């Protein structure tokens, strides 16, 4: 290396005036330097002052970087530099020149300023390029001076001249003298710049902080972040991605991708869910420091996440990723499209974004919770108002749709038997794709011991079945579940207190367990209420019916407490009754109206083992024809128009008791067939029902008709007749048991005198005689009413008159009626009848006398005797 040439020694000593000027210039320069705060002012002032004394073209300051043993331009002379027009100027400004070369090493070794002729050194191997660049712009000589700090070189001041020999000894001395001042000035500038930068960052963060402190929503966050990052240098796009609820994916939350205007890409980015463990996102989340990565390199690394391709397409090359973390929880990632990292600034920004994000998320969660709670409250309202299954169903479907976005797969309720689980409610629309299967499956009655039901009932908070897994494990239901395309089957036990009342099944991809639990608790209560309500109604109805029977029983209690009559005929009846009472045999009681058929039936029931339960009486004649079946067998809700409630039929009501079918002869043929089946099979189906119900009833039928004749006439089914006619008990008419009339009379007198409050102590023998001679077409019932009437009409304590009906109807042809007349009456009636037929002609051919085969005079005298006037035979 060729050493620097020293200028020739000075010939003449400097004049005092020159020295004075130099002193003044240096003093001014020293003053200037202490005032310098702006970096390029230093060179400008330096140049201006020194140029008053010496000649040079321009000057620059370079700084040493220990990191890689280089020196880099720091202060540039923007006015004097002739190389600014050189094509490599910009390259020179940005270059890092190695310290490992002879030229700069010579400068480092030199204690004093050292000068070089450019042409001597610029082409030496490893010589820095700026030497040649300067030379090409006319510069010929360079004076290099070390700037020292704490005993170490920190940089250099380069002084250039286009005139060789410009750097006199005096010049060198001056430069040597001011070098320490320049060093401290440069140090100050560096410190000042650092301070300014820090200050700028601080105020940036402060601004950002106050912006972000007011952020409450996602949109506000986006605005604040966009405004802040827009101030960064250089501004680029950014994306904040948030960790989704599933904790396995991330989705863009707030972003500014102004580099793309392709709505399709934006939409794809926006709606995407990227798995966290994609090889990049997880790296960033695991890293405490911001990571700078190259998009192309990450793609080459094999990371297939779509966003990298989009970024590449948008021209993102280097991206910084920083995790957004609050305490120990990662919330997301901030991606910035910039190529450099200012750690303190980024960490400041991210800390604030993290807090804002956490706040927003907490806010969102709270408002979501509130919404859910409000909805649950509404649901609670709806549910408490639900009195019927339909109202409940509407409420349940609505809450499932609104809060959980799912449909009810199945709700089963444990039956009263505590074993079976019946489908209570389900949404048909859910399994539209597999309707057939579902109907079949839901009709299938399961018990609480069924595998899945048992698991659910045993679980505390319900179970989640993964559809795919269940499918693999061969769950038959899973096939059906799969048709919905939903991933999980949520099943929860419905409980009231500790008591299981059923199970609920919901198909969904994901449900919030808390809200699900809340809903189920309410559904449980609602169902329990409805079931209790239904049960209550049923009990109420049963009680009402029982009450009716009891009333009826009370009405007749005196009647059957004792069956009056000890005559031979009745003895026969008693014997039959005692024979049949203990058995379950069907009894057919035959007898005229008023003979006490119901009394006998009750007596049989009351002496049978079934006497503890109420006998159910059905009056077949009193039923409207179209309701007979529902009356007898009951019906399901909606079995026919107007069937609003389920109704329990008489047969079901009389289960384990006796059903008394009064007036069986009046039963329509259709109902006869059904009845026959019940009697034969001892089981029935409610109208509109699918279930058959086993029943155990004892039948007692009664009729006043002659069933054999009815059968012949085709009005009564023969098979039914034979079924009923197992044990007939014929009741004698009252006229055949006249010996019982007296005790019956006394019984009724006593009963009604007590009821009416009249004290009848005696019955006149005449009255007894009258009663015995009457034929009693209305049998005992007629006797009872007759006595009642007579008691009311009696004037004193003795029953002296009875009002036996007299000839009430001339047309009556009944034997009993005819038998009740005297010969005179018969004779009179017959003569009137004949006269009517003969149009009032008494004698002569075709006359009444002719028909009666008596002489006309005889007829005349008879008519006179019997008091027959024209009015009798010409009336009507």
């Amino acid at each position, binding site marked *: 290396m060729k050493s620097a040439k020293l200028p020739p020694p000075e010939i003449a000593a400097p004049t005092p005036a020159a020295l004075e000027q130099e002193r003044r210039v240096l003093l001014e320069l020293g003053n200037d330097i202490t005032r310098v705060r702006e970096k390029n002012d230093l060179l400008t002032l330096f140049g201006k002052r020194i140029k008053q004394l010496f000649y040079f073209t321009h000057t620059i300051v370079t700084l040493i970087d*220990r990191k890689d043993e280089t020196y880099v331009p720091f202060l540039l002379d923007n006015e004097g530099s002739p190389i600014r027009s050189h094509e490599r100027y910009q390259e020179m400004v940005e270059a890092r020149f190695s310290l490992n070369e002879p030229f700069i090493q010579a400068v480092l070794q030199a204690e004093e300023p050292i000068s070089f002729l450019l042409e001597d050194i610029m082409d030496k191997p490893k010589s820095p390029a700026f030497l040649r660049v300067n030379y090409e712009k006319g510069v010929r000589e360079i004076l290099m001076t070390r700037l020292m700090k704490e005993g170490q070189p920190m940089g250099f001041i380069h002084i250039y001249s286009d005139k060789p020999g410009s750097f006199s000894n005096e010049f060198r001395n001056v430069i040597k003298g001011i070098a320490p001042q320049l060093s401290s000035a440069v140090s100050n500038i560096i410190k000042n710049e650092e301070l300014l930068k820090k200050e700028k960052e601080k105020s940036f963060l402060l601004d950002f902080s106050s912006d972000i402190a007011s952020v409450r929503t996602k949109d506000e966050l986006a605005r604040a972040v966009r405004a802040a990052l827009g101030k960064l240098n250089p501004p680029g796009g950014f994306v904040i991605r948030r960790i989704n609820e599933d904790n396995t994916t991330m989705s863009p939350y707030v972003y500014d991708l102004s580099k793309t205007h392709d709505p399709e890409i934006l939409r794809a980015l926006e709606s995407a869910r990227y798995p966290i463990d994609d090889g990049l996102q997880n790296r960033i989340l695991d890293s405490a420091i911001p990571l700078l990565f190259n998009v192309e390199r990450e793609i080459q690394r094999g990371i297939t996440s779509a966003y990298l391709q989009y970024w590449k397409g948008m021209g993102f090359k280097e991206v910084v990723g920083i995790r957004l973390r609050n305490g120990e929880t990662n919330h997301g990632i901030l991606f910035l499209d910039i190529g450099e990292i200012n750690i303190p600034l980024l960490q400041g920004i991210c800390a604030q974004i993290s807090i804002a994000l956490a706040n927003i998320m907490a806010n969102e969660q709270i408002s979501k919770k509130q919404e859910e709670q409000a909805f649950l409250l509404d649901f609670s309202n709806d549910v408490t108002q639900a009195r019927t299954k339909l109202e409940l169903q509407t409420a349940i479907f609505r809450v499932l749709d609104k809060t959980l976005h799912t449909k009810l797969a199945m709700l089963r309720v444990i039956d009263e038997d505590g074993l079976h689980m019946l489908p209570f409610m389900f949404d048909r629309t859910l399994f539209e794709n597999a309707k057939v299967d579902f109907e079949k499956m839901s009709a299938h009655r399961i018990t609480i011991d069924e595998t899945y039901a048992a698991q659910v009932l045993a679980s505390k908070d319900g179970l989640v079945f993964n559809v795919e897994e269940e499918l693999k494990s061969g769950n038959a239901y899973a096939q059906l579940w799969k048709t919905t395309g939903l991933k999980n089957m949520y099943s929860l036990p419905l409980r009231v207190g500790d008591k299981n009342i059923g199970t609920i099944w919901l198909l969904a991809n994901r449900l919030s367990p808390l809200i699900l639990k809340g809903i189920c608790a309410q559904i449980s209560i609602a169902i329990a209420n409805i079931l209790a309500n239904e049960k209550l109604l049923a009990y109420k109805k049963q009680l009402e019916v029982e009450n009716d029977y009891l009333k009826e029983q009370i009405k007749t209690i005196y009647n059957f407490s004792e069956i009056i009559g000890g005559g031979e005929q009745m003895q026969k009846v008693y014997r039959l009754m005692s024979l049949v009472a203990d058995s379950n045999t069907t009894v057919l009681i035959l007898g005229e109206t008023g003979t006490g058929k119901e009394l006998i039936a009750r007596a049989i029931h009351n002496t049978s083992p079934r006497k503890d339960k109420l006998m159910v009486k059905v009056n077949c004649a009193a039923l409207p024809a179209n309701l007979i079946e529902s009356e007898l067998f009951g019906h399901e809700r909606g079995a026919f128009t107007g069937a609003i409630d389920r109704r329990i039929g008489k047969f079901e009501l009389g289960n384990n008791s006796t059903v008394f079918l009064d007036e069986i002869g009046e039963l329509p043929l259709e109902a006869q067939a059904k009845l026959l089946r019940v009697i034969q099979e001892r089981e029935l189906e409610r109208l509109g029902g699918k279930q058959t119900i086993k029943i155990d009833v004892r039948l007692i039928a009664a009729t006043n008709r002659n069933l054999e004749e009815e059968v012949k006439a085709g009005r009564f089914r023969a098979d039914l007749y034979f079924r009923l006619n197992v044990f007939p008990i014929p009741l004698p008419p009252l006229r055949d048991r006249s010996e019982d009339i007296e005790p019956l009379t006394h019984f009724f007198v006593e009963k009604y005198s007590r009821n009416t409050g009249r004290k009848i102590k005696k019955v006149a023998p005449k009255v007894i005689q009258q009663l015995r001679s009457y034929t009693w077409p209305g049998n005992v019932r007629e006797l009872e009413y007759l006595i009642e009437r007579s008691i009311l009409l009696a004037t004193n304590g003795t029953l002296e008159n009875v009002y036996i009906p007299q000839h009430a109807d001339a047309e009556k042809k009944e034997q009993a009626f005819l038998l009740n007349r005297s010969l005179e009456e018969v004779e009179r009636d017959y003569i009137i009848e004949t006269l009517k037929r003969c149009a009032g002609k008494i004698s002569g051919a075709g006359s009444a006398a002719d028909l009666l085969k008596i002489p006309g005079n005889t007829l005349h005298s008879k008519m006179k005797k019997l008091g027959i006037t024209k009015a009798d035979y010409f009336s009507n």
Partner: protein
Amino acid sequence: MKIVVIGGSGLIGSKVVAILRQGGHEVIVGAPATGINTITGEGLAEAMKNTDVVVDLANSPSFEDKAVMEFFETAGRNLLAAEINAGVKHHLALSIVGVDLMQNVGYMRAKLVQEDLIKRSGVPYTIIRSTQFLDFLPGIANQATDGNQVHISNVQFQPIASDDVAAFVAEATLAAPIKGILEIAGPERLTMPEFVIRYLHDTSDARQVVPNSRSQYYGGEIPNAALVPAGHAKLGTINYEKWLHNQPQKV
């Protein structure tokens, strides 16, 4: 090649940097003073750009158990994360012979964590486990001194000169990653008291060495042969005498 030497201003680091620069490589000295901080991550990403090899020779500024662990864990994670992003092709770190046998010592636990981080990072690596440096001898004597006596356990010892360490590190830096552990040691194996006796004698130190059989190193219980390589190791060329000769003479 572009090589970043973390801890490049330290005892071994500066020597390695010098050797590598001598070889004409672009070497970046990573140290907080040069604006590259593995704890805060400052300057790390920029330094890693286009870097081929990273040599991690950094040591914890504090030797307290918790601080050491935190240092090696944080620095290791940050450094390796930045390397992965930048596509660095070789990570080289300096560890200690017997590090896995001395896990009762906090510092060793931290070094093993550092090794594990490297092994799991996916970056091709070379871990060099070295024995103690000859340069430690004065320190070992000082920490064991009680009055005029120096209590040293009779453990095996095979110290290596720091120049040898730097040479081995530089050599491995320029070689392909071995994806494993390379052990290096000094040319002589004696007991620790023997080395200390020689050193005190040669430096005219009046203190008396009192060997004991407690098997301790810096107060921690260690297996007798933990400080020396168990299997094959590369041995340095500078023995005790040569090393001592090269030491600046005390005035």
